[in-house]
């Protein structure tokens, strides 16, 4: 028996996995239905090519590129919050108006109560978290389906927003800091510093993780995999930064317009921070466990209702951030801030990115990729002079496509025994 055990030990600790092994492993996974970010990435690439062919420079110029980022960033933040709720297999239909109400609250704090922008913003986020707390309590303690609870909140918050702004009225945003988020760019040197830090952090993180595994004697992909990933990431970041650093003002004498939009720092920061929470902390692991099998999680000693409540709080708090981004872009809060298609685009973004509505499967990055797809469709079709009706139709079609990919890959996964 001991000989077997030794043979086994040798077997499982094959020191280095070659590039070929890593690649073929990945191919097996994709074939088995674990497609990950592939459909969304393919969507971004295909759509970009299509619109480049159709619109040429109108679509590819630096001005439109930064515009695209601004259009997609609020949806991205809403979608990031929704990922947490979707991971549980729940839904939050009220996230859009939660964002609107919180943004209005932030505006009121600054305008009527003379708050500085920092405490006002924090107040808005806390208000969002409180909304999430109430939703979470109703869902997990009372057992009301989240669809119904959040539908009720959707209606009620819409009313509250209307009362706060007054019919047809607006709450103006005047603070230069908050307006800068969606309207200003970083100075060129700061943009490049930010890019350098991001690239260095990405490479260092990958390297230390690899080192930790190797030190523990666990199978590790070869250094080449890490190098290729880091180089690819670096190329993308540098290319994007360079493009955004170009002068993109139509009239340079009136106003110069160049540099990385400030909102990118917020979106990137949230992406890193939330991914870190979901994948590196026990709490994040519990979120996946509750989404995968709540009963198993409960028996393993996980406080399921606390996990549920925290996810709803996370979603609503992020919705507050998203709401402020929307208000920052339009310089004010109006009765439809966070309304109309905001919530549905955000859910759509998460699903297009690969987050499952059935719970247990999804990443924060999905929100970003899905939002990119939606932003490109809206932006590209509007440039083509297509009516808004057609934009909605195509977006719906893409969402349907994404959900079908999810369903098909799920079936394949079941057939090959993968999730």
């Amino acid at each position: 028996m001991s000989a077997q055990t030794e043979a086994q030990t040798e077997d499982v600790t094959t020191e280095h996995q070659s590039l070929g092994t890593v690649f073929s492993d990945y191919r097996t996974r994709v074939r088995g239905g674990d497609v990950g970010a592939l459909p969304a990435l393919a969507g971004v690439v295909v759509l970009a090519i299509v619109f480049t062919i159709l619109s040429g420079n109108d679509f590819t110029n630096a001005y439109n590129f930064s515009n695209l980022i601004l259009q997609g960033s609020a949806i991205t933040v809403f979608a990031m919050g929704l990922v947490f709720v979707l991971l549980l297999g729940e839904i939050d239909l009220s996230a859009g108006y939660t964002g609107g109400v919180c943004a209005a609250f932030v505006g009121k704090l600054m305008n009527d109560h003379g708050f500085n922008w920092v405490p006002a913003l924090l107040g808005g986020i806390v208000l969002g978290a409180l909304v999430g707390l109430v939703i979470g309590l109703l869902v997990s303690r009372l057992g009301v389906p989240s669809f119904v609870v959040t539908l009720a909140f959707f209606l009620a918050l819409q009313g509250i927003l209307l009362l706060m702004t007054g019919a047809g009225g607006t709450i103006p945003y005047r603070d230069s800091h908050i307006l800068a988020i969606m309207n200003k760019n970083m100075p060129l040197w700061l943009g490049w510093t930010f890019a350098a830090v991001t690239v260095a952090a990405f490479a260092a993180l990958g390297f230390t993780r690899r080192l930790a595994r190797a030190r523990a004697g666990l199978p590790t992909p070869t250094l080449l995999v890490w190098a290729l990933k880091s180089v690819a990431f670096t190329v993308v970041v540098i290319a994007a930064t360079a493009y955004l650093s170009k002068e993109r003002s139509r009239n340079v004498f009136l106003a110069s317009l160049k540099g990385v939009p400030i909102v990118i720092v917020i979106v990137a920061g949230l992406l890193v921070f939330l991914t870190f929470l979901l994948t590196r902390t026990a709490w994040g692991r519990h979120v996946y466990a509750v989404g995968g099998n709540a009963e198993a999680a409960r028996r393993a000693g996980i406080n399921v209702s606390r996990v549920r409540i925290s996810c709803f709080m996370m979603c609503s708090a992020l919705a507050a951030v998203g709401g402020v981004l929307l208000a920052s872009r339009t310089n004010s809060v109006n009765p439809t801030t966070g309304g109309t298609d905001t919530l549905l685009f955000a859910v759509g973004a998460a699903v297009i990115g690969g987050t499952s509505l059935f719970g247990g499967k999804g990443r924060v990055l999905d929100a970003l990729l899905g939002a990119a797809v939606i932003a490109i469709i809206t932006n590209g079709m509007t440039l083509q002079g297509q009516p808004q009706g057609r934009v909605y139709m195509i977006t719906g079609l893409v969402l349907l496509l994404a959900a079908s990919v999810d369903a098909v890959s799920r079936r394949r996964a079941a057939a090959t025994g993968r999730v």
Partner: protein
Amino acid sequence: MTATQTEPRPAATDEPILSLRGIEKSFGAVHVLRNVDLDVRLGQVTALVGDNGAGKSTLIKGVAGIHGFDRGEYLFEGKPVTVHNPRDANDLGIEVVYQDLALCDNLDVVHNMYLGRELTSSGLLDEATMETRARETLNGLSVRTLQSVRTPVASLSGGQRQTVAIARSVLWNSRIVILDEPTAALGVAQTEQVLALVRRLADKGLAVVLISHNMNDVMQVADDIAVLYLGTMVAQVKTSEVTHNQVVELITAGQTSDGKFGTKGADA
């Protein structure tokens, strides 16, 4: 109270780690367990058998702390203890592998083994240590059926899933592992693998309680057989001292036809 028990006791190899004496449990008007005794010893597989409704699950849930017993003594290493909830049982080193296994399909083997008890270093998940220890535990149990500990549990076969659930239960320096019908849903080859694993657990010095309907499994792997009949423990005997038929008679009638074992309607 327990002195009136007339079943022949096998010569103890050593002191039982877990002893139940005179256990009573009712759910409303239904008297589920009547004056039940049970001894569980380290290094032995104790099979708990009985027909549907005999009270096996109730007994096990009481041991695991899911619900309390109404009356009776719960002795751990000879000392009376109180077990109010599953945590208390875990703290004593008692782990239960339920029939549905309670695994998260979307998580991998390591994640499942450490579910709810993740190792952290300075607040972060310590993946490397968890993976190393999970491998060690699996290797220690001579589990050779798992390709990689990083595959999602959904992609594993029934036997492999059972293996993961059992390995999880021994990861925590547990002393007693209770297995609820571990082979019920398995094919022949996988049943063999799981039974071999059950045997190895006992050989490593753990006390194993095996609940099973399958007499072949029981006769093959158990050292000791405890038979519940309508809520009473009619016999706890050494496997070597009974025949297959005698056990079946105990399960179905509460006593053997030759009157050697069992006391119908339980004494007292």
